[in-house]
Structure formats: C-alpha cells, structure tokens
C-alpha cells in the first residue's frame, strides 16, 4: 500500500516538476516582451494625449488626509458619490503625469480606474489645471462591442470636453447630458457611469492639485 502511494506521489511530482520547468522557460522568454509592449503602448497613448508637450515622470496620489477630505467633499457636492460613501483615490488614480510647456505645468494626464459592464476599465484622461476635461483614451477594457466599446473612440468624449469647473461639473448622470448625447449612450449606461465617475474624480483631483507640484 505504502509503495503504491509513494509511486503515485513520485509520478505526479515528476509531472508537476517538468510542467513548472517548461512554464519557467516560457515565462523567461515572454516576460520582457510583455513589459516592453505595455511600456510602448502607454508611451504612445501619452504622446497622443499630450499634443506634443513634455510629459513628466509618473507620480501617485499623495497620502494626505487633508487632500482626501477635500476630495470627498468635492465629489459629494458634484453628486459623484453619496454623502456616506468613501473612496480610495490611491486605488482609483493609478498614475499622475504632469504635462509641461517650457518648464511650466499646464495640464495633467491621469491614469484612472473605472468599473464598466465588463469589469475594470483603464482610462487615460487629460485635464487643464482648472479641472476642465480636455480628452481621454480608454485603454484596457472588456466592454461589449457595439455598445460600451464605443467609448474607445475619441468622439465619445466630446460630451465631456470643457466640463469640470465648479459651475459645470463633469456629467455623471444621463440627466446632465443633451438629448443627443443621452441617446448616443443608450444601451451602455454602465460604461458611461464608470467613465463619468472616473473622469469626475480626475477633474476634482486635478482642481485640488491646482498650480502646486
């Protein structure tokens, strides 16, 4: 009995060890290609979004209670979140790229995480210093073709352009859209919600960054 058990264990271990070895080799070959490809993709998107201005080093949101509370207050005021809700901006804003012209920061590109119909969406969005939206690109996503996938096109973001100031915040509900824009997003409300909330967060965060940094 014992020798049978030993035999089984040994054979299964051999199979696992060989499999692990092969996978290790494949990983060694593909890992640098995957990392390089992701870097190039990101660089290309940042270049297209910055309109030729210089994109600075990526940063992450500062870990400051003061900033967090101000952000929460702004988001509640703009109806992005409910009065009792809390968010973790360090999770939702994954990178902050300052864009400068002749050494002066004129815009910010934020890498934002939103939640769509198909799960996580990564959005790169450009905001002026006053928080007004300029343009965006939907990166990683799993949205439905013909519906949510429309957000991959740059025209999708026309409804947000210029919005983001305190008097005209980023629209987070269909009600704040024009009839034709509301029509355009029908059938993909969850994608719209995810993108809008991410952009509204980005807008309010950039406003807090202001001219500092």
């Amino acid at each position, binding site marked *: 009995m014992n020798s049978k058990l030993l*035999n*089984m264990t040994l*054979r*299964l271990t051999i*199979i*696992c060890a060989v*499999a692990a070895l*092969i*996978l290790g080799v*494949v*990983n060694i070959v*593909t890992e640098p*290609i*995957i990392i390089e*490809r*992701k870097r190039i*993709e990101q660089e290309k998107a940042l270049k297209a979004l910055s309109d030729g201005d210089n994109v600075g080093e990526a940063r992450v949101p500062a870990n400051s209670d003061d900033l967090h509370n101000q952000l929460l207050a702004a988001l509640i005021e703009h109806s992005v979140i409910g009065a009792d809700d809390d968010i973790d901006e360090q999770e939702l804003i994954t990178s902050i790229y300052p864009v400068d012209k002749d050494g002066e920061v004129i815009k910010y590109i934020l890498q934002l995480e939103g939640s769509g119909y*198909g*799960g996580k969406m990564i959005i790169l969005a450009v905001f002026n210093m006053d928080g007004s939206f300029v343009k965006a690109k939907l990166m*990683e*996503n*799993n949205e*439905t*073709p*013909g*519906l949510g996938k429309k957000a991959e096109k740059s025209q999708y973001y026309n409804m947000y352009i210029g919005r983001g100031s305190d008097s005209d915040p980023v629209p987070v509900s269909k009600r704040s859209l024009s009839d034709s824009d509301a029509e355009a997003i029908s*059938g993909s409300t969850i994608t719209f919600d995810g993108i809008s909330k991410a952009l509204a967060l980005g807008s309010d965060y950039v406003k807090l960054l202001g001219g500092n940094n």
Partner: protein
Amino acid sequence: MFNFLKGLFRENPIFVLALGLCPTLAVSTQVVNAIGMGAGVIFVLIGSNIMVSLLKNFIPDEVHIPAYIVIIASFVTIVDLLMQAFVPALSSSLGVFVKLIVVNCIILGRAEAFASKNNVKDSIIDALGMGIGFTVGLLIISLVREVMGAGTITLFPMGSFDGVIEIPGLIDAPARIFSLSPGALLVMGFLMAGFNWLLSKKKKNKEN
C-alpha cells in the same frame, strides 16, 4: 479520417456534445475573439492530447485527473503568456476566458475519453477534429451575433486595413440584443436546433 470528421459534425463539441458552452457564449461577441479562442483551444487540445497519450502508461489511474489538469493548465498558461506577448489586443479582449480553457470540458473530456486510450497519431487527429469543430461552431455564433448586434465584422488589423468591416444598413441600426447575453443564448439555441435537425434528417435518409 473518421476521427477527424466526427468532431466537425456528428460529435461537434458545441452543437451536439454541448461542451465548453460558458466561454463560447461569453467570447462570441466578435469574430476575432472566436478565431483567437478557437486557435487557443486547438493548441491546448493538441498539446494535452499528445501528452496524455504519451504518458498514458506512466500516469497512475488513481491520480489521472490531477495529472491531466496539470498538463492542461501548463498548455493554457503557455497560450496565455504567448497571447499577452504577441497578440495583446486579443489577449485583453478574451480576458479571463483564456485562463478558463483549463476547465473547458472539451479538453478534459477528450483527454479522458480518447487520448488516454489511443495512440499519439489518432489523438492528434481527434484533437484537430474537435478543435476545428469547436472553432467553426464559435465562428458561426460570433458571426451572427456581431453582424446582427453591432453591424460589423471584426478581424485582425493588417496594414492599412483596421480590421473592422462595417455592414452598410446594419451598422446604423443593429439589433443590440444579439451583442448581449440573451442574444448569445438565442443564437445558440437556434443553431443547435438547426444542427440537430440536419443530423436527424441525414440519419433518416440513411435508414431509408
């Protein structure tokens, strides 16, 4: 030849055996997904069938399922890493379903029902037939769903061709339901019925 053809028609994994339906319904929103998923499944099927057939005397009966799973999971991980490195767009659009090939019943089913009892050559032929049968099924479903639901046919971008063929008339007013989950089940149901009707007609003709 019989081993190859049975996967295409008489034992088509999707329409007749109804195996691996979960990823089938989930990824069949675009034609390009069907091609990618099909290629992935064919690769894993061939690889695992070869290994299972080669190792059938080495793998003890009592632990044959864990051994098969290790073999299948290894091939799936290889496919996943290769897709991420060389066809990233496809990899992100197939998402978690590439990883889920591990638990696709077709793969384990063929290892258990065929490769573990037959030689390598027959196992390869069986894998090819089943894999191509699966891909063809997936292609038909995704073609109907994408054309009707989005008015497009999405293939791989090549040179100046961006990979998307737009169907005039349908692109402006597609029947969105086909892109969504209920559409997947509807299309699947009708195709399955059609396939079975064809097969039963053929059988009747033979009997007469």
